[in-house]
C-alpha cells in the first residue's frame, strides 16, 4: 500500500531521509570504539585462562598499560553518555510543552511497542502480517535503553573498582567481590548482545544484506529503505506534508565509501571480539 505513495510523489525520488544528526553519529562512533577497546582490554583479563589472552595482553603493552587504556576508554564512554544526557535534556526542555512522551518521536516505550513485539512474533510464525514501524522500532528503543542499564551497572561497578580506597572506606570488602562478578558478567552480556543481536538487527538480517548498514555514519537512508523499514513514519510524514523537511541529498560517494569501509572494519572487529569471547566462554565452561 504505502509503496504506492512515492509513485504519486516523483519529486522525492533519489532523495534520502535524515535519521541521525551529526552529534549522534560522532557520539555513536566514539561510543563504539571506546566500548570495543573496553571489551578487548577487559575480556583479556576476564578470560586470562585462554591461549589468546596472554598474546593480546602483550600486544596491549601489559596489564598496567591495559588498565590505563581501559579507564581512559571508560571515561570517554561515560563522558559521551553524560553529554548525551545533557543534549537530550536540552532538547526536551526546549520543546517541553509540545513534547509527546509517548509520541512517535519519543524513545520512551509505549503500548504500541508491546503490540509490535506480539505482532512480530505472530509474523515470525506466519500467523499475521509484518508490523509496520514508526520512527523507532521497539528493538531500537531497547538498544537505546539497554545502554542506560549497561552504563548504570558496568559504569557504577567500574567506578567502585577504580577507586578501591574510597570504596572500602565506606563499604564492606565483599562489595569488591560482588562488583567484580557483576562488572564482568554484565560486560559479557553487553558485548555478546552487541555483536550478535545488535549486529543482526542492523546489518545481517536478509533485508539488510549485504552489510554494512551505513545510516549511523551518513545519517540518512534511501527513501525506498525508509519506506520499508519505517512505513508508519513515512505514511505519517506524507499525510502531514512533513516528509520534505526530512529529505536530504544523497551522501557523497566519498562519504558513502568511507562509511562502508568504517562499517566493515567495526563489524570485523566486533565479530573478532565475539570469536575470542566464545573461545573464552567455552573454555571456561569446559574446565
Amino acid at each position, binding site marked *: 500500500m504505502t509503496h504506492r505513495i512515492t509513485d504519486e510523489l516523483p519529486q522525492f525520488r533519489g532523495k534520502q531521509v535524515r535519521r541521525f544528526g551529526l552529534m549522534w553519529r560522532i557520539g555513536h562512533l566514539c561510543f563504539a570504539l571506546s566500548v570495543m577497546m573496553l571489551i578487548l582490554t577487559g575480556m583479556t583479563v576476564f578470560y*586470562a585462562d585462554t591461549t589468546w589472552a596472554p598474546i593480546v595482553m602483550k600486544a596491549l603493552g601489559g596489564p598496567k598499560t591495559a588498565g590505563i587504556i581501559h579507564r581512559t576508554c571508560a571515561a570517554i564512554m561515560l563522558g559521551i553518555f553524560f553529554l548525551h544526557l545533557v543534549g537530550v535534556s536540552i532538547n526536551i526542555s526546549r520543546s517541553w510543552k509540545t513534547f509527546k512522551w509517548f509520541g512517535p518521536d519519543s524513545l520512551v516505550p509505549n503500548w504500541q511497542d508491546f503490540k509490535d513485539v506480539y505482532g512480530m512474533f505472530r509474523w515470525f510464525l506466519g500467523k499475521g502480517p509484518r508490523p509496520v514501524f514508526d520512527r523507532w522500532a521497539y528493538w531500537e528503543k531497547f538498544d537505546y535503553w539497554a545502554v542506560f542499564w549497561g552504563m548504570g551497572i558496568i559504569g557504577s561497578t567500574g567506578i567502585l573498582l577504580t577507586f578501591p580506597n574510597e570504596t*572500602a572506606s565506606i563499604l564492606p570488602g565483599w562489595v569488591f567481590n560482588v562488583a567484580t*562478578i557483576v562488572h564482568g558478567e554484565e560486560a559479557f*552480556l553487553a558485548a555478546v548482545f552487541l555483536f550478535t543481536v545488535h549486529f543482526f538487527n542492523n546489518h545481517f538480517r536478509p533485508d539488510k544484506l549485504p552489510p554494512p548498514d551505513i545510516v549511523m555514519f551518513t545519517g540518512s537512508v534511501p527513501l525506498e529503505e525508509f519506506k520499508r523499514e519505517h512505513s508508519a513514519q513515512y505514511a505519517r510524514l506524507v499525510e502531514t506534508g512533513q516528509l520534505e523537511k526530512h529529505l536530504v541529498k544523497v551522501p557523497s560517494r566519498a562519504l558513502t565509501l568511507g562509511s562502508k569501509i568504517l562499517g566493515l572494519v567495526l563489524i570485523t572487529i566486533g565479530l573478532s571480539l565475539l570469536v575470542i569471547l566464545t573461545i573464552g566462554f567455552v573454555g571456561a565452561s569446559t574446565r
Partner: protein
Amino acid sequence: MSPVLQSNRFMILAAIFCLAGSLATFRTEAAAKEADSKHEISAPPAKLNNATCLVCHDAGKGELKTTDADGNPKSLLGLDNNKFSKSLHGEMQCIACHQDITDAVSPHKKGPGPKANCVSCHLELWETAKKENLTKEKARLEVVVNNIEYYKNSYHARPNQDNPARPNAVCDECHHSHTFNVPPSGTSRRTDWHLSIPNVCGEKCHADQLEEYATSVHGKEVLENRNLKAADCTDCHTSHGITATLKDAFKVSVTENCGGCHGKNLTSYRDTYHGQVNKLGYGHTAKCYDCHGSHGVLRPSDPKSTVHPDNRLKTCQKCHKEATQGFTTFEPHANTHDFERYPQSWLVSRFMWGLLAFVFTFFWLHTGLWWYREAKDSKARKNHPENRGDTK
C-alpha cells in the same frame, strides 16, 4: 644465603685454588724433589685403583692431614668407602671421574684430563645410550639429563656474584657425589631422604630461610611431624629448575606450585584480578606469598599470620598503600557456589546468570525467527513475477 657464610666459603676455595696454581707453576725443582721424597708412598703404580686412592683418602682413618709443597699443613679429602660402595657410583673407579689425577703422589701432579664433572659425564652417557638405542632402558639417565637441562637454566647455574668463575651452586653441593643414592620409593630411607631436603638447602647456604621455615606451618609439619605432604623447599621453588625469586618467571610459576597442593585456593585466586594478571604472565599483582608470607607461612587462624584479621590491613597496605578498612573484609578466595561462606557472591552470580539466560533466550529466539521469516519472505518477493530484478 648468609653472606658471611658464603664469603668465608669462597675465601677458603679461593685459597685452595691459589695454592694449587702456585704449586703447579712456581714450584722449584729442588722443592719438588724434596716434597716428592717426603710424601711418596711408593713408586707410582702401573694402574691407579680405588685401593691406591684410599691409602691416603680413607675417611675411616680419622682426620686426614698432609702438607703442601711449602710444607704447610693441609686437610685431605676423606672418603667413607663403606658409604661410597653403597652409593649409585660405588662400583666406579675414582679416576673415572677424577680424570686429572694421574699419580699417587701428594700433592698430585695434575694431568691433562678434565676435573670431576657430573654434567659432562652424564651427557656423554646419554649420547652413548641414544646411539645404542638404549634410551628406554636408561629412563633414569634421561631424568638426570633433563635435570641437567633445568639446572643449566636455573639460578644456581648462573655465575656467582662474588666469584663469577664459579656458579652459585653445583651438583655436589646438594647431592654429595660420593654417597649419592636415591633410596627405593616407599622405604623409610626414602622418607628420610625426602625429609632431609630443607636441611640440604638450609645448612650450607640458605640458613636464614631454613630458620624461618622451621617456624612455619610447612616447616613444623616436615621437620617435626615428618609429614611428607607438607611443602619443603622444592615444592615451591622446584629443584633443578630453580629460578631467581625476583624474576617474573618465578612470580608466575610459584602460584601454580602452591596450587599443586592448595588447588581450590588457586582456582578462587584465578577469579580475582590478582590471579588473572598473574595467569597472564605478570608478577606485579599479589601472589600467594605476598599475603600469606613465604618461608614463615602460618595458618590464617594464627594471630601472628599476615592474613589474620588483625594483621590484614597492614598486609594489604604493603601494595595498596592507602588501603582502607573495607579491604580487610574483601574475600580474595571467594567462590560463587558456597552460600554459607560467600552469600553475596552466590546471590549476585545467580542473578547475573538468570539475567543472561533471559536476555539471550529472548533475543536469540527473536533473531532466529526473524531470520527465518525474513529470508522466506524476501525469497518469495524475489520470485514474484512483478518483482524480478528488484534488488532489495
